[in-house]
Every structure is written in C-alpha cells, then in structure tokens.
C-alpha cells in the first residue's frame, strides 16, 4: 500500500460517521441510476423488438423517378414544385423480384417479404369496419422478416397455411367485430366483396396494428385488390437491426427506391423513450450530487481538523502533491465502497422491479416491468459518481495542499 493511501485510510476510519452521508448517497445514486436505466432501456428495447416484429427493419416502397434538370426550365411553378419536393416517387414497387435480387447482395439482409396492401372494408355478422388494411403476404417470406409466428393467440399458422381463403385478424379488430377463430368475414375492396375464414387471431400489442392489419395469402389479395403484379412495399429483416439507417441509405442509392429504417419510421416514440431515459438519469443524479456535496463538506472538515498533521507531514518531506493525494484517496475509498455496494444494490433492485406486475397495452403489451441488465449502465452510473465526487473533492484537497507549514505551526493558517 502506498504511504498516501495508508494515511488516507487512517484519516477516514477516524471519521467514519461523517463519511456516512456521502457513502449512503453514493450507494443510492449509483444503485438508482442503474435501476432507472434498466427499466427505461428495458421498455425501450422491448418496444424496438415489437416494432421490428411487426414492420421489420427496413421498408422499401415507391420507386424514385429521376427528375430531369430540364424540368426546372419549363415554368416557374413547376420548378418551384420540383425544387421543393426534391424527388418524385412512383407509388409502389413495380418489379419486386428484381429489387429483391439486388437486395440479396446486401450482407446484412436476413429476409425479404413482398407485400401487396390496400384499404378494405371488413364485415362480420355483427358490424362493419372501414379502416382495416389488407396485407397480402407470402407467409414463409413474411415469417422471416417479422414475429408474426409468435403473435398468434388463437388458431394457428398451420391453419392459415392450409386455408387458401383464410385470414389472420388482429385482436382489437376481432374484438370489435366479435370474431373468433373459424368465423366467416366479408372483405370488400373496389366494390367487390368475398368471404374469407378467420384462420387465426394475432396480437402484437401495438394497438394501431392490431386494429388495422389483416393478413391474407398473396394470390387472394392480388385478385381482391386487383393488383396482378408488383408490390406495395418490401419488408426487410436485418441481421443487425442497429445498422438499418446506413443500409437504408445505401439501398436508396443502389435501388432507386424509397427505403425507410425503423429508426426513421418510429422517430417519435424513440424520442419519447430517449427523453425518459435522460430525465430519469438527471433526476437520479441528484443523489450523486448530494454525495459529492457531502464529500466536499466532510473533506473540508477533515482538512481543518488535520492541519497539524498536514504540517507534520510537510515537515517530513511530503509534497503538496502527496497532501492532495491523501485527500483524494479518502474520496476514492468512499467511492469504491459506494460503487461496489451501489452496483449490487442496483442489481438486486433491478431484479425486484422486474417482478412487479404492470399491465401495459398500447404500443406494446406486457404484464410486468421490463428490465434489462446492461454493463454499460453500471459503467455510466459509476462514472457519473466518480466524476462528480472527485470534482467536489478536488477543492478541499487542493486547499489542504496549499497550506503553508509555517502558517500552520504558528496557528495562522486559513
């Protein structure tokens, strides 16, 4: 043990009670920081899992029309228009097969599902709903880019697979139309209606989806929507979803189609989660702030009580730097203990919070608190405490170092 650490430890043990406040607040600050990050990022990553499970990582739609420069010269109004819009789109993906072939060149692409989609009217014996959106899919393709397989709560995928005129209906829509598995529904589009069988009911937890999306086999959807070729959009699954924005940007450049990453699509909700994380982080940092103020206070007190010891140490050849170190070590010891206990406390409370029942439904569905244990949270929590407490300790530590031994022994040190 270095002489300075040894002295720091001894000074500290003589002042255990005074250090308690700082230690307690360090533990609370570190622990609660970890807990709040575990819950907020728990919900955030669960939300991300849900939206990836519904809409995949990237959606490709609408071919980009290469606007000619000459258009600008045609007329003032036209040039204004094209300037403002920047690019023009042709709705839908005209040649999904060619686009899909190009997409397979992207190493991060895990799956591609072409979807034919359009607004429909769905009627049961009980009621008619006008807002549903029909999703014509090739099931096996779509299972590769979504969690549809895990979202079935009634009926089964096999039943859907084996029923050519079967549909999968969301839980909210099914409730509104009072549908159960095996019921028959009328689905109308463009003035023509046909009868389909409810092969299963799914629930994503995202209310807007469960109310709207109706899944149907591709061929049936094509004839109902009168879209014999092409696709409305392609849903892409990625191996590493975090790289979606970069991949989407490259897809736009290569495929000349609009490509939207999930980060761009869900920017509003993601911003809400981010804001929540930061606000809880700031709130909880109040404990760390108190810890650092208490540390400042205690060290300032010890400096005053130990001025004579400082003079003795200086007379024996201990440098200013040693005196600073002795006081910083004291803060360091309290921090180390506080960080260790705080991290443990945070881990235990995180576990306990994960057991709390909490029914949520709306943008996702869960029946208990969602927590994730991420080493980065521990690093951030301890790092925050380290910086704040050390900065606060620096002031008394440097003051102690500035004391002149001559002034101390005469009793005129200040």
């Amino acid at each position, binding site marked *: 043990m270095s*002489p300075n650490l*040894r*002295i720091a430890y*001894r*000074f500290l*043990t*003589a002042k255990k009670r005074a250090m308690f406040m700082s230690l307690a607040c360090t533990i609370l600050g570190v622990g609660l920081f970890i807990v709040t990050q575990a819950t907020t990022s728990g919900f955030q990553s669960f939300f991300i899992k849900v939206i990836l499970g519904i809409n995949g990582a990237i959606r490709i739609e609408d071919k980009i029309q290469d606007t000619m420069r000459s258009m600008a010269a045609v007329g003032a109004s036209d040039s204004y228009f094209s300037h403002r819009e920047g690019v023009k789109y042709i709705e839908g993906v005209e040649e999904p097969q060619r686009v899909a072939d190009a997409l397979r060149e992207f190493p991060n692409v895990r799956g591609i599902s072409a979807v034919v989609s359009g607004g429909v009217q769905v009627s049961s014996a009980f009621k008619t709903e006008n807002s549903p959106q029909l999703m014509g899919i090739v099931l096996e393709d779509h299972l590769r880019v979504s969690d549809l397989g895990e979202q079935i709560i009634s009926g089964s995928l096999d039943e859907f697979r084996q029923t050519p005129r079967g549909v999968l209906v969301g839980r909210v829509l099914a409730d509104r139309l009072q549908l159960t598995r095996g019921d028959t529904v009328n689905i109308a589009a463009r003035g023509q209606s046909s009868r389909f069988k409810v092969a299963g009911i799914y629930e994503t937890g995202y209310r807007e989806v469960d109310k709207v999306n109706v899944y149907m086999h591709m061929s049936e959807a094509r004839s109902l929507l009168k879209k014999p070729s092409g696709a409305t959009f392609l849903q892409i699954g990625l191996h590493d979803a975090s790289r979606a924005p970069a991949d989407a940007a490259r897809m736009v450049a290569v495929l000349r189609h609009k490509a939207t990453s999930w980060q761009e699509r869900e920017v509003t909700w993601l911003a809400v989660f981010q804001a929540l994380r930061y606000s809880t982080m700031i709130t909880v940092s109040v404990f760390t702030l108190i810890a650092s103020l208490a540390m400042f206070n205690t060290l300032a007190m010890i400096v005053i009580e130990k001025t*004579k*010891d400082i*003079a*003795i*140490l*200086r*007379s*024996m*050849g*201990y*440098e*200013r730097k*040693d005196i600073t170190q002795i006081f910083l070590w004291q803060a360091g010891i309290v921090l180390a203990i506080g960080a260790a206990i705080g991290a443990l406390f945070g881990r235990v409370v995180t576990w306990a919070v994960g057991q709390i029942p909490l029914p949520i439904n709306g943008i996702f569905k869960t029946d208990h608190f969602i927590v994730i244990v991420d080493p980065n949270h521990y690093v951030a929590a301890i790092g925050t405490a380290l910086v704040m407490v050390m900065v606060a300790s620096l002031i008394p530590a440097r003051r102690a170092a500035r004391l*002149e*031994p*001559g*002034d101390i*022994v*005469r009793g*005129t040190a200040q």
Partner: protein
Amino acid sequence: MLRCTDLHRYLGQGEGRVHVLRGVSFAAERGQVYAIVGPSGCGKSTLLYLLGLLDQPDQGRIEINGQVMSNSDDLARTAARGAHIGFVFQFHFLMLEFTALENVMMPMRKLGRLSAEAMKARAHSLLDAVGLGAKTHRLGTQLSGGEQQRVAVARALANQPTILLADEPTGNLDVKNSALVFDLLTRLAKEQGQAVVLVTHNPEIAERCDVTRPMRDGMFV
C-alpha cells in the same frame, strides 16, 4: 553545513505587524551541538522554522549544504526537508491516529530508501534509543506528552538527517529522560557528524552544548 545571514521576519498583518527577527546570522557545523536560549517570545521558534525551511524569511539567505534555499521553490524545500532535516516541533508532536512505530516510519516511507523490513527495524531501534521500545504499538493518543515528544525525536532522526532542529525537545521530560534524549542527540552529532540545533530553557542542557547562542528581541546578543 547550515548557514543563515541577516534573516528578517515580520509576522502579523497591518497594525499587528511585528518585526520578529531583526537580522539574525548563524552557522552550524558538522558534529556540533548548538543551543539557542532566550526569554519567551524572543523569536527562537520563528528562527527554527526558517532554518527548517518550514517558513520563508522576508529578507536574508539560508544555505544548506552549500545550496541557497531561502528563495527556492516549494518542491526543492520539501525535498531538502525530507532528505537533510529532522524537525522536532515545540508543541504538537505526533499524528495521533498512528502508532509510535508508524509515526517513526512515516518519513522513511516518503523517502523510500529502505525496504519495508529495514524501515521497521530502524524504527524499532530508534524507539529503543529514546526508551520506548516497549510502547511501539501504542497510538499517539495513548502516550503521555513526554512519550510523544520522545517519539517525535525518534521520528526526526528517522531519515538520518544531516541537520537536526529541535524546539525544546526536553521541555516535557523529567531529568532522567531529558538526559536520555540529550545524550542521544549529542552522541549522534559526535558519531555521525550531524549538526544539532536545539532551543532550550534548561540552563543545564545549554551548559552541556558545544555552543550556546543567547537571543533577545529577535537578535543574537
């Protein structure tokens, strides 16, 4: 070895500013024991702090082993204190949270010349020499004033300083222990060639020193 010329020191501020040292010159040679005597308040401690590089003079120069230290920087003065000077304070002696042994080892640990084992052995022998061999593991708070003072003497000798400055090292001691400490200091001066400067009110001790410098009102007389 140790030489100061025309030292002036003012203390206090504004109205209360006092001219405490009024041109003190002094030199200490190897192997000699010096006594500074004089009435209370004449400036003996003030002079010793200056010689010990714990304080800086307002005027004059201090040379230690041929080097001018009076206007050198803090780091150089600190290094000189650790390596060449042993200091015994007049009033407070020990770091009270530490044992006698730890107090004596403290300067050695900073200097770092000896191994941990050698430091311990040396601290034990120094405490033996001041008659405290049996109380090495007592905390500062568990020692009497005179015992603390003797530990402080042992500590001042820890790094084998070439100059030992002691402000009334026998002030709290009975006749027997006064003699013990004084004999130790004179023996070291003779055997190891240290310069010993001590402040004392005890005429018998002053008598036995090689040189006695009486002081009055901030000047040697």
